[in-house]
Structure formats: structure tokens, C-alpha cells
């Protein structure tokens, strides 16, 4: 199949393969975050751009009743685990780009301190059949002051809308780029 599953296959052993090692001169890294709803193609986009097989990092977070459920004064404390797939592109001898695909179906991913902070930018990946799935992520990016582009992943059976209609539906300011892409193709991922 021509897409990457959200679950990267396990590697042969501990540590990176020899061919995946960064040059000893690597000293600076930049971070781009791909956000979007469930099944929209985040992992596929990470995989199509990455030079390494996508990896997964996770974090366990304790939530002190994050103000979503009012349980009538009962103090709530729950734990949740958020996992993110990511890939890497070595840009030159000293600069490395990391791409993180955030789990759109998990409500609390943005609480992972530092995922958005320090990100150079973000790609909001949109499926026109489920436009509303990306609204929460866009709110987070605007709150965090992270510059982003909106990319419509062109699924074959998804309806095609004029850009003006999409901009209106997404309440997109004029300065935010809106592009179409095929997340499976490297050259499309790079346009971002």
C-alpha cells in the first residue's frame, strides 16, 4: 500500500543503524510539526519526507482536571500517554530538520510541553471530507504564535472546493498559505 501506517515497524536492535547516524558536525536542529485529524495522512507525510524510517516517541502526562469535565468539585487526576511519530532530514553538515506528526485524535497532545514551543512552523493537514477535524489544532497554533500553512491532502474521493470557500470555512487569514498536496509524494511534502 502506498501510505505509511501510524505504527512504525520495530528496528533490528537498540540504537540507530549505522547508515542513519548524523554527521559528528551536526550542531543545530529545527522542528516542524504536522497537525491534523485522525487518519488525515500525518504519518504518511512524515514518512515521505524523512530519510530514516519514522520513529515514535511518547510522553506520559498527568492531567489535573483540565477543565473539560465538570465533576462537581471532585478533584480529578488522570494519566494519559501521548505518542508522536517523527522523521528526520539532514540538511547539511550542521543543520538537521525534525518533523513531528501530532496525534490529532488525542485531546491533550498540546499539553506536551515543548512540542509546539520552539517549532519553526507547522503544517495543518486537512481532509476536505472532515474539515472540522483540524479546527482545534489551528486554534492551538494561533494561541502559540506558531506560523503555519494549510495543506489539503487530495484524497481521490474527497470533494474539491474553490480556495475561497475553503478559506471561509477554515476562517483563514489572508497571510496563511493554502496549498494542495499528496502526502504520499516527497516533492509535495517539500513544497511546505
Amino acid at each position: 500500500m502506498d501510505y505509511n501506517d501510524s505504527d512504525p515497524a520495530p528496528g533490528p536492535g537498540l540504537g540507530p543503524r549505522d547508515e542513519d547516524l548524523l554527521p559528528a558536525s551536526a550542531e543545530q536542529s529545527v522542528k516542524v510539526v504536522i497537525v491534523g485529524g485522525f487518519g488525515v495522512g500525518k504519518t504518511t507525510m512524515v514518512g515521505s519526507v524523512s530519510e530514516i524510517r519514522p520513529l515514535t516517541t511518547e510522553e506520559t502526562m498527568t492531567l489535573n482536571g483540565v477543565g473539560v469535565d465538570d465533576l462537581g468539585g471532585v478533584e480529578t487526576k488522570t494519566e494519559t500517554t501521548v505518542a508522536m511519530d517523527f522523521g528526520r532530514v539532514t540538511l547539511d553538515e550542521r543543520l538537521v530538520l525534525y518533523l513531528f506528526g501530532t496525534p490529532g485524535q488525542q485531546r491533550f497532545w498540546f499539553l506536551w510541553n515543548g512540542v509546539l514551543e520552539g517549532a519553526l512552523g507547522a503544517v495543518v493537514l486537512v481532509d476536505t471530507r472532515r474539515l472540522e477535524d483540524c479546527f482545534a489544532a489551528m486554534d492551538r497554533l494561533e494561541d502559540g504564535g506558531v506560523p503555519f500553512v494549510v495543506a489539503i491532502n487530495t484524497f481521490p474521493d474527497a470533494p474539491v472546493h474553490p480556495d475561497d470557500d475553503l478559506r471561509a470555512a477554515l476562517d483563514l487569514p489572508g497571510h496563511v498559505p493554502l496549498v494542495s498536496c499528496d502526502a504520499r509524494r516527497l516533492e509535495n511534502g517539500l513544497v511546505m
Partner: protein
Amino acid sequence: MTGATGATGPTEPSGVGGRRSRRPRRGGGGAAGRAVPLYIVTGGRSESGDDLDSLLLDLVTLVVARSTAPDAGHSPEHAALLRVCQHPISVAEISAHLGLPFSAVTVLLKDLRAGGLVELRHTREAQRQAAADPDIETLKALIDGLQRL
């Protein structure tokens, strides 16, 4: 872990528990498969959110070992961490390769750094500043690098 790991297609599981249980792990990690509980790995410590240390480690901070041998008193996890960072590697990659959560890796890394065993390149503080005020040279290198792909 479970038979579900062979599933194909963009079928992200809806619940956290489902995702954990079907995710393959290197090094036998993951909550269910982890031989040693996390609080043992970190010596009962967790990352404190608001001290100066929190400015240190970003997901993409690069780590390079300054030694091949851990100090006496370091755990097998310290040793494993030192092994994977003989070449520059990001904190996120270390977390993935060792099957440990990001926060557990940061605790171990602070120990190693205190002993002078690792060097940190491009800390969270540097990331923050670079994102707030990206310098033109870096952006040019980014665009050049992407166009070469």
C-alpha cells in the same frame, strides 16, 4: 505484544490504551512490556517544569557522548543512553530507540550531563530563541537543504 500489531491501513486506535498495547517497542519497552518500572529508571524523580533545567532539553536538542563508559553508580539505562549517543542524536530519537518516555530520558540525560559525560547542542532555550527570531542563515540553509533532496 498483541496480535493487533500487524494491522495495516490508517486505522489509528481511538483510545490511549489501545495505542500502547499494539505499538511495537524496541528494547521491550512500553508500559506493559517494560521490565523495570519507570520510577526505578529515573530513581523516583520526574522532570520539574519550572526550574532552569526546563530550559535545557527540547525534543530536538542534539546529544553527543563525551565518554564511552558510564560512571560508577549509573544504571544500565544510563549506559544504554550513552551507547546510542556516540554520534549526535536528538532526545526524541533516544526516547524512540530506548523505548523510554521523553521525560524519563531527560532525567537520565541531566545525570549524564552533570557528570560531564554528554554534550548538549541546541538546547530548548536556543530553540525558543531561534523560533522567535529565526536567523536568515538558518532559513537559507533549510531551504537550500530541502531543495537538494
